[in-house]
């Protein structure tokens, strides 16, 4: 049709949405309902994490270069303060994509008894935390 420069975005809409990028339309996706998570680094000592977060420590997400690699559960507060996040964390947490529709995710979370979901992109980069609306 005579256009000199035409490109094809190979990843398409699913790639765009799975990165948590802004979108237009009627969909209500997780990406619009994120809250900032409490995070810590792999080599951070629990004593320092607790001092930074305060008495409200309820666990946090362990990140390495922006990639979510594990979770420190609330019980970690009882470990030796000199312990690092790497030593105390739980590997292999479940994550969800920002491109999920919140109604479906909320239904699954209620069924599983989950209050919060860790949201990452396809590369494991931490984007935030999702909590189902009341």
């Amino acid at each position, binding site marked *: 049709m005579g256009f000199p420069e035409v490109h094809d975005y190979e990843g398409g809409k699913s790639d765009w949405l799975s990165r948590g990028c802004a979108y*237009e339309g009627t969909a209500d996706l997780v990406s619009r309902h994120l809250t900032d998570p409490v995070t810590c680094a792999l080599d951070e000592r629990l004593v320092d994490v607790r001092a930074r977060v305060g008495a409200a420590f309820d666990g946090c997400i362990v990140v390495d270069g922006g990639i979510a690699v594990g979770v420190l559960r609330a019980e970690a507060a009882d470990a030796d303060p000199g312990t690092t996040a790497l030593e105390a964390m739980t590997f292999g947490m479940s994550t969800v994509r920002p491109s999920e529709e919140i109604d479906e995710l909320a239904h699954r979370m209620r069924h599983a008894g989950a209050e919060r979901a860790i949201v990452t992109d396809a590369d494991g980069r931490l984007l935030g935390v999702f909590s189902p609306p009341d």
Partner: protein
Amino acid sequence: MTRGVSFSQLRDLLRDGAQLVEVLPAEEYGWAHLPGARNLPLKELDDDAVSALDRARPVVVYCNDFL
């Protein structure tokens, strides 16, 4: 000839003024689309449909994933 671009290349093209076109049906476009994208469903693509596009600017087409 259409050239495939990655996410980062798309961001560069958009920064430089490229026009976005979603070729999925209207219902899917209405559900969600990239900001500023026009909807030109593949089955309806003809000279009239593309007349609103600026031929002097690059065009980036996309669908749900790999075309």
